[in-house]
């Protein structure tokens, strides 16, 4: 078990090291997120929809779509030069590959979210203030679930034609529950409602994480095998 976890960390560290060298996925995702916020900020009718009303949805749609761009890359790098075979041949359980890729993907998505949040504050003119700790907790809870599902779908679609089209088609339906929860929580937190008012939503996000991380870890080995 310790070995399996250690190997997952080795894989995550490899992904992070490779990304630090190329900066391909992170740069694209951060630029994409910034452009999304610009679009949301300016493509609304101010008289009928205030920035504050749009802000939670804009934030989470931006997070989700930016995450998708990094998830698309997650297994594409393993397909280049057949590197995935190298992982599959290593004496480790397939679950180590899943958790390694999941940890690497989470690191990338959290970095994208960390860059996006200040831009969101600027474009939507919201004061995070007391909402920040709750918002960070919500980000962690909402992100873990959909990144876990995205990691499996990324592995599944990378062997298909049109992988970059297939991933959003498969993943978006599974993103709906965490996005709905995250938007609800974010709206209340930005309105300076107490954390206790959103505890049910936070529990729902936590349950989604536990259920889907478990399912994904169980399904992943059969996704990997030809």
């Amino acid at each position, binding site marked *: 078990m310790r*070995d399996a976890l250690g*190997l997952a960390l*080795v894989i995550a560290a*490899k992904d992070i*090291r*490779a*990304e630090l*060298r*190329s900066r*391909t996925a992170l740069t694209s995702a951060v630029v994409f997120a910034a452009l999304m916020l610009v679009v949301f900020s300016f493509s609304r009718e101010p008289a009928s929809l205030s920035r504050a009303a749009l802000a939670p949805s804009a934030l989470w749609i931006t997070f989700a779509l930016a995450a998708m761009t990094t998830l698309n890359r997650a297994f594409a*790098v393993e397909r*280049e*030069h*057949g*590197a995935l*075979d*190298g*992982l*599959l*041949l*290593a*004496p*480790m*359980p*397939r679950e180590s590959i899943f958790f390694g890729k999941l940890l690497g993907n989470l690191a990338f998505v959290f970095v994208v979210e960390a860059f996006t949040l200040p831009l969101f504050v600027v474009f939507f003119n919201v004061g995070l203030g007391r909402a920040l700790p709750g918002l960070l907790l919500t980000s962690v809870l909402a992100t873990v679930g959909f990144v876990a599902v995205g990691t499996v779908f990324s592995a599944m679609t990378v062997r298909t034609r049109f992988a970059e089209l297939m991933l959003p088609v498969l993943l978006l339906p599974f993103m709906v529950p965490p996005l709905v929860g995250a938007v609800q929580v974010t709206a209340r937190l930005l309105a300076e409602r107490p954390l206790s008012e959103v505890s049910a939503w936070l529990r729902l996000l936590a349950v989604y994480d536990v259920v889907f991380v478990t399912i994904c870890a169980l399904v992943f*080995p059969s996704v*990997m*095998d*030809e």
Partner: protein
Amino acid sequence: MRPSEGALLTAAGLERRFGAHRVLAGVDLTLGAGETLVIAGPNGAGKTTLVRILAGLTRATAGTVTLLGRAVRPGDPESRRPIGFVSHESLLYDDLSLHDNLAFAARLHGAPDPGAAAAAALESAGLAGRAASSPRALSRGMLQRAAIARALIHRPALLLLDEPFTGLDAPAARALRGTLEAHAAGGGAAVVVTHHLREAWSAATQVALLREGRWALHEDRPGALDPFLARAGALVDA
């Protein structure tokens, strides 16, 4: 066929279908310690599929692979530990240096000092001077040498090499033959798939010709290549 008792690698009744198409149709093989099987055959004969099944990368529709007395199965990570694999592709990441690529492979195989293992592997492949280079900056031959170094980094008992001579110049091909002979002398076994029998002939202890998913020929290596080629006909290149 040799008796399988005490064999390092045994494959029995391997079949693989892709839909209605049967790529392998009942392949058996037995390799003992110190043996090298060289497989030739025309395109589409099932050579790559056979090697991938032996590596546990592709499931056989029927049949079994046993390595060091243990069935090779995707669900059994330890069954893959004794395998070193060279495929048509390098298995290397363009966004890591050569050294980091090999150190990563060494870490996956539990090497106590992955950095030292990577440095030693690059040294023996004659690539120490390119340790900091990305694989994308290497020539085809250098890339192939790096791929072979990656496969050898954990000192596997079984080497599975699919077209390993591709892109190698004469000295590098000679070095690979030397590596195969040293591997066999050390008690390892190897399966080498090649279109160019002459390259691998001296390292072989068994030679086989695969055609339409079956052995058309499979025998101990005869002394001379030319009589074998005469029997194999136009299905293999020299």
